[in-house]
């Protein structure tokens, strides 16, 4: 099997696993830690590669891994990996629209009036 196709298949499996994990895990609680929304101080404390991805997502609001990678000048697969790390940390939401997977910053709480 072509490596590219194999990689796509693995990516799809990873996407499905992430969706399952998100369904099973109460929102913003992972591994017993209560995770916060992605505020600017948390953004500053992220490692460089994740901070770049998260900052780009803040600007784009909703984007696919490919759209983020076009801004960060990284490979789509690398960017997808970083965005999925941010999803696992609870800072980013991952969702589907049709066949396409999108990411957005996870704003857990709405602004209180």
């Amino acid at each position, binding site marked *: 099997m072509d490596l590219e196709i194999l990689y796509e298949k693995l990516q799809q499996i990873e996407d499905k696993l992430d969706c399952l994990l998100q369904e099973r895990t109460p929102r913003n609680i992972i591994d017993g830690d209560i995770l916060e929304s992605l505020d600017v101080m948390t953004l500053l404390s992220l490692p460089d590669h994740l901070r770049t991805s998260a900052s780009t997502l803040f600007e784009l609001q909703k984007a696919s891994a490919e759209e983020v990678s076009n801004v960060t000048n990284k490979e789509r697969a690398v960017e997808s990996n970083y965005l999925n790390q941010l999803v696992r940390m609870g800072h980013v939401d991952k969702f589907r629209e049709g066949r396409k997977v999108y990411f957005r910053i996870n*704003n857990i709480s709405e602004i209180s009036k």
Partner: protein
Amino acid sequence: MVITIAVHSCKGGTGKTSIALNLAGAYAASGKNVCLIDLDSKAPSLSSIFNTRSNKWVNDVLFGKCNITDVIHDVSDGIGVSGKLYVGLSDPNIIAIRDISSKDRKWQAKALQVIMDAKKDLINAGMDVIIFDTGPGVDFSSINAVATADYVLVIVKPNKMCIIGTGQIINGVYKLLGKNCGVVENMCHETHFLNPISNTQFGVPVLASIPCMCDVQLKTDADILALNEPNHPFSESIFKIMGQISEQSD
């Protein structure tokens, strides 16, 4: 090209508001559509300069009650600018200040997104230059503004404490957020000009060294000095800063 500038400093009392106000005036005088937003919501100042009789504030935008375009005021009339100058004011009422000061980091996370949306709305409304007057130091409200800006103008008072803090904030905040920035030394005494901050000290350019002048505080308290007295040394520094930001951003 649209530019969003956050005027920031590591300490209070460096002259951020005076520089933000006059820079906004200078851009408007050069024909740009400018919006000056007071994001120093814990110690707002611009409402004392612009008597807009406002009942809508930047606070309302942060609380999700309205859009940024609902709270900005056109103050261009009679100030002699070829462009437009708009201001968005923070509520100076102590209840509003207490309210916003008590917000937690989840609220601040959402506020960051709100400020980013506001920037996009102002660009869509035709602004060429957006200037955020921020609070001092590393605080959610000021760093939210910094994170949203394209360019950070950091104001330094030439004393040891402020210089050390500025180095930290450049390396520990602006550079981490990938911001383009420039330094302005403000309120410099004669002896400082013998040993000014060099371009290599912080690794970012020093755009101007403004001498300490007693009349500036009085004259920027109610008016835009860069428009009223464009040949004043303070005003000349402001126009020089504007030119240097353009060069750096091109």
